[in-house]
Structure formats: structure tokens, C-alpha cells
């Protein structure tokens, strides 16, 4: 009897101790130097490496203390979920407004009208979707129409798992709507025909680039403009070229301060200054160097030759915003599921 009592007491004691250790939070770090945590998505890694160095200099020249910016990169949706689940980001710089909406909605860490806090829908730089084809464009791909023709291999990631892939599908849809005077049934037929030409749906944008570039699969890659430039400039101008379609979508990767977290970290001013600096001429210059389209007129004019002009539709005017586009196209039972159910 005595042994059982002792046994139970020991169990309780150890269980309690282990939980106690697990629950004791670590003491918060000293305030000097200031650390900012920027949670971003995959293709912005190089952009923010440059930008962080520039911002740190800028902040100190303005009389601020040393700033260390930590970056984290991953799929946009995965990053948003990490913030919702408690990753203490000071700022988020993601691929879709929908993902920041989800943070606002699920965690309440920032207000629902976050997108009105900064100019240009809180998107300091933009990008678009272009085609990357093999050198000499052997299949003569000129516009979206050509992608739906039989015998063309189109490489794009799975829009269920990749934010970039959602822009791809919407761009194709926007083209088809324009061509068929707004007929949605025709647009769906077109998009279905296009996806019939897709042999692989990688889970992310970089995966698709690998499939197209390294494995030599497919005739055309639907890519972020910045990824397409990167592929051409890094992997060889003699292997690939960029084809700009007649119509594409204006991708606006948004940025936001995670308000409750910066209050907690006492980093409100520096976090705000960090995002404001993205809109400054220096910040815009860095974005343009990394093949993102700058918003600021002077910088945009300087780099105008680099970015071809094309007809760009925005998600708000063509689709009524992400809150409408996501359920209609990409949630279970949406357009993407429908075109595969019909196969």
C-alpha cells in the first residue's frame, strides 16, 4: 500500500515538474539592438536581404539604434498559419492579401482594414505573370490562346498549395473573359483546356521552375515575372526567353505591420519605418533591381525599359478581391476542382 502511494506521488511529482519546465516562458531579451521579425514568402529572400541592410543604415542615419531584421521564408499560406499559431512576426510581407486577411480574421493580431493603412493597397511593389519558354520559342507561343492548344506542355504549380499558382489561373481567366466578352462558361472551358496541357502540378513555384528548367519538362512555364527574370539571367540567356502575353494580372504582394505583436515588442515605430522605407526611392530601387515592378513614378520611369508594358488587370476590378476569388476558384468545389472533376 505504501509503495503504491509513493509511486503515485512520484508520478505526480515528475509529471508536474516536466510540465512546469515546459510552461516556463523564457525571459524576454534586452531591448538593444532592436530586432524586427519579417515573415515573408519564398521568392523574396534575396530582395529582403538587400533591403534589410539598406534599412539598417537608413535607420541609424536617422538617429535610430542598430536594427537587426530576421527573415523567414516559406509558402505564403504556411507562413500566415505560423503567424496565426503564434510566430511573433513584427511585419508580414506575403504573396496574397488573402493570407494577411486570414491572419486578421483568425488571430485578430491586426485590424481587418489593414490593407488601407499603407498606400497602393499596402503593396509597395508589384509583379505579374509572364511565360518562360525555351530559347527560340520552338512552339511559337505568343499569348494565352496558345497554351490551350493540343500538344503544348504547360508547367504551373498546384493552386491549392501555391499562392503564385493562384495568380496564374486568375490571369488566364482574366484573358478568357476579355476575349469572350465576359462569358464565364467560355472562360471555364478555356482554363480547363489549358490545365489539360499541364503534366505536373508541383506544390510550389520553385518546384515548377525546377521541373521546367532542370528536368526539361514542358514547353512553357507560367511564372512570376521576377522568377522568370531570375531564371533567364541566372541560368542562361541562351536557354530561355520571356514571352509577355497581351493581358496578365497585376500581382500585388502586400505588406503589413502585425499591430499586436509590435506593441508587445515595443517596435511600433521601427516596424512602421521599415515598411515606409519600402515605398521610398531607395526601397523602390532595390525592389526594381530584384525584378519587382516599382510603384514610385521616378523609379518606375528609370526602369521602364526593363519591364515590358502590358495590359494588367487587378484582382479587385476583375474578381472583386481575394475574399471573393478564393472561395469561387480555389476552395473545395471551386472552379479549379470543377475543371478536374469534369476531366
Amino acid at each position: 500500500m505504501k509503495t503504491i502511494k509513493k509511486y503515485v506521488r512520484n508520478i505526480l511529482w515528475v509529471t508536474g515538474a516536466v510540465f512546469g519546465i515546459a510552461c516556463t516562458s523564457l525571459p524576454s531579451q534586452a531591448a538593444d539592438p532592436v530586432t524586427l521579425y519579417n515573415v515573408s514568402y519564398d521568392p523574396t529572400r534575396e530582395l529582403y536581404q538587400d533591403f534589410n541592410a539598406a534599412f539598417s543604415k537608413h535607420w541609424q542615419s536617422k538617429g535610430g539604434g542598430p536594427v537587426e531584421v530576421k527573415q523567414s521564408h516559406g509558402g505564403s499560406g504556411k507562413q500566415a498559419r505560423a503567424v496565426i499559431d503564434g510566430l511573433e512576426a513584427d511585419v508580414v510581407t506575403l504573396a496574397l492579401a488573402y493570407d494577411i486577411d486570414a491572419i486578421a480574421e483568425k488571430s485578430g493580431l491586426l485590424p481587418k482594414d489593414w490593407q488601407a493603412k499603407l498606400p497602393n493597397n499596402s503593396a509597395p511593389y508589384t509583379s505579374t505573370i509572364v511565360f518562360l519558354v525555351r530559347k527560340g520559342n520552338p512552339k511559337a507561343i505568343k499569348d494565352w490562346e496558345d497554351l490551350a492548344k493540343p500538344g503544348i506542355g504547360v508547367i504551373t504549380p498546384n493552386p491549392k498549395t501555391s499562392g503564385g499558382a493562384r495568380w496564374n489561373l486568375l490571369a488566364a481567366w482574366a484573358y478568357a473573359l476579355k476575349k469572350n466578352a465576359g462569358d464565364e462558361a467560355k472562360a471555364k472551358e478555356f482554363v480547363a483546356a489549358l490545365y489539360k496541357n499541364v503534366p505536373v502540378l508541383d506544390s510550389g513555384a520553385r518546384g515548377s521552375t525546377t521541373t521546367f528548367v532542370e528536368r526539361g519538362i514542358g514547353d512553357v512555364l507560367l511564372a512570376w515575372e521576377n522568377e522568370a527574370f531570375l531564371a533567364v539571367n541566372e541560368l542562361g540567356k541562351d536557354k530561355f526567353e520571356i514571352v509577355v502575353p497581351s493581358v496578365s494580372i497585376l500581382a500585388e504582394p502586400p505588406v503589413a505591420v502585425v499591430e499586436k505583436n509590435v506593441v508587445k515588442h515595443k517596435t511600433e515605430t521601427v516596424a512602421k519605418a521599415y515598411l515606409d522605407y519600402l515605398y521610398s526611392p531607395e526601397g523602390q530601387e532595390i525592389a526594381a533591381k530584384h525584378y519587382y515592378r516599382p510603384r514610385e513614378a521616378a523609379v518606375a520611369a528609370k526602369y521602364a525599359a526593363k519591364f515590358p508594358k502590358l495590359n494588367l488587370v487587378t484582382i479587385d476590378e476583375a474578381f472583386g478581391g481575394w475574399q471573393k476569388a478564393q472561395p469561387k476558384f480555389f476552395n473545395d468545389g471551386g472552379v479549379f476542382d470543377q475543371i478536374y472533376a469534369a476531366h
Partner: protein
Amino acid sequence: MKPFKQPSVIPGFGLSMGFTLAYLSLIVLIPLVALVFKSSGLTWQAFTEAVASPRVAASYRLSFGTSLVAALVNGFFGFIVAWVLVRYKFPGKGLVDMLVDLPFALPTAVAGIALTTIYSQNGFLGKPLEALGIKAAFTPLGVTIALTFIGLPFVVRTVQPVLQALDPDVEEAAVCLGATRWQTFTKVLLPALLPALLTGITSAFARAVGEYGSVVFIAGNMPMKTEITPLLIITKLEQYDYAGAAAIAVMMLVVSFTLLFLISLFQKMERA
């Protein structure tokens, strides 16, 4: 009735038992309870819709079908590998023995990318296969290849020790008593090895069903065709449908528990 406390020369039963319970709760039990809890927000109808929609059903067929094939392939060839490693001496045996563990040690994403490179239509093995009219990467065959890769050590490592413990004298005795080679194998060797073999196959199967990292690269992720069940969990999460994702996860959990139950049955057979 077994006594509550087994006498032992080394003291500390209460302490170590307490630690075990705390540890298992923290690492295994609490996350699983949270999972079931997340899915409990769904109505019964929403739950069945999440776990039995045609697309999810197609993924079960793919995941369980390819896992079963992969486990059986490993059962056959893993047995041969174990046999060779136990019964023969040859130069480089240590190296071969190490190679068997490689799928354990290699990050699954690395395995997935490597396999895709080799088996895609321009790859080292993919090209000749393509010439024969066989597409490997981005088809269920590719999924099976990846799952076979990651499952190999399970069969070899469960059969190997049992085979090692099996005295070759027994086979000699069988032959002396007039058994043919086939009889020696089926009547003497196989019954002794069967529980270990079944345990290995079931473990390989259980591991394959849940595998994500290596498969997403080679699967091609085509809806209704090559989407594995864990990928659908990810797609639900991308829509912030936590409950739906948890519902599919609970289904997989039920399957895992069933498999573990089978494994423990096989292990009882082995001891009997």
C-alpha cells in the same frame, strides 16, 4: 494477475514510470487529443463530406494502394536482402548493410528530388523507361517507387535479427530427415520468419501511408490521379480549413492505430 510492481535490482520504478507517462503525454497524447478536438467542431455531415468526398476518396485509393504495393515489393526483396546479409560473407558487406539504412537517414525531400530527377522523362532511368512506353515520374508508379525506397529498411531490419537467431542446424536437420529444399523453406524457415516478415511489411506500409516529403515531388499532384492523402491535408490547410484538415488526419490516425494493432498481433505471434 501480474503484480503492480516488478521487483528489480535497480530502483527507481516510480520515477521512471512517472517520466514515461509525462513524456508520452507531452510528445504523443496531447497533440493527438488536440487533433481530435479540432475536428470535433464539425457536424457529422461536414465530417463525412470532408473525409469521403470523391477527391479525398481518390487519394485514399492512391495512398493505400501504392503503399500496399510498395510494402509487398519490400516484403519480397527486403527478405532477399536480409537473407544475403545474414547468410553470406562477401567483401563490402558492411557497406551494403549501411546502404539499407540510408532511406532512414536521408531527408525525405532529398530522396524525393533525387528520385524525380532520375525517373522524370529526361532522367537517367526515366528516359529508357519512356522509350518502352512506361511513364514513371508523375504517375502512381512514381509514387510506388518513392514509397518502396522509404520502406526498405523496415523489412530488412525486422527480418535480419530473427534470421540471425535461427540456427542453420535446423535446416540441416530438416534436410537430413529427407525434406526437399522447397519443404525446408516453406515448412521450417518460413513459419519462423513469418511474424517478423509481416511486422516489417506492416511497418513499411504504415510509414508509406503517412509519407509526404519524398512523394510530393515525384507524384505530380494531379487532382483525382496522383494526389496523396497527406497532400489533401495541406490543401485544406491552405484554405484555412483547419477542421477539414483535422478530419482527414483523424481518418489517417484511425488507420495508423489499426496498423499498429496488427503489428502488435504479429509480434505476439512471434513470441508464441
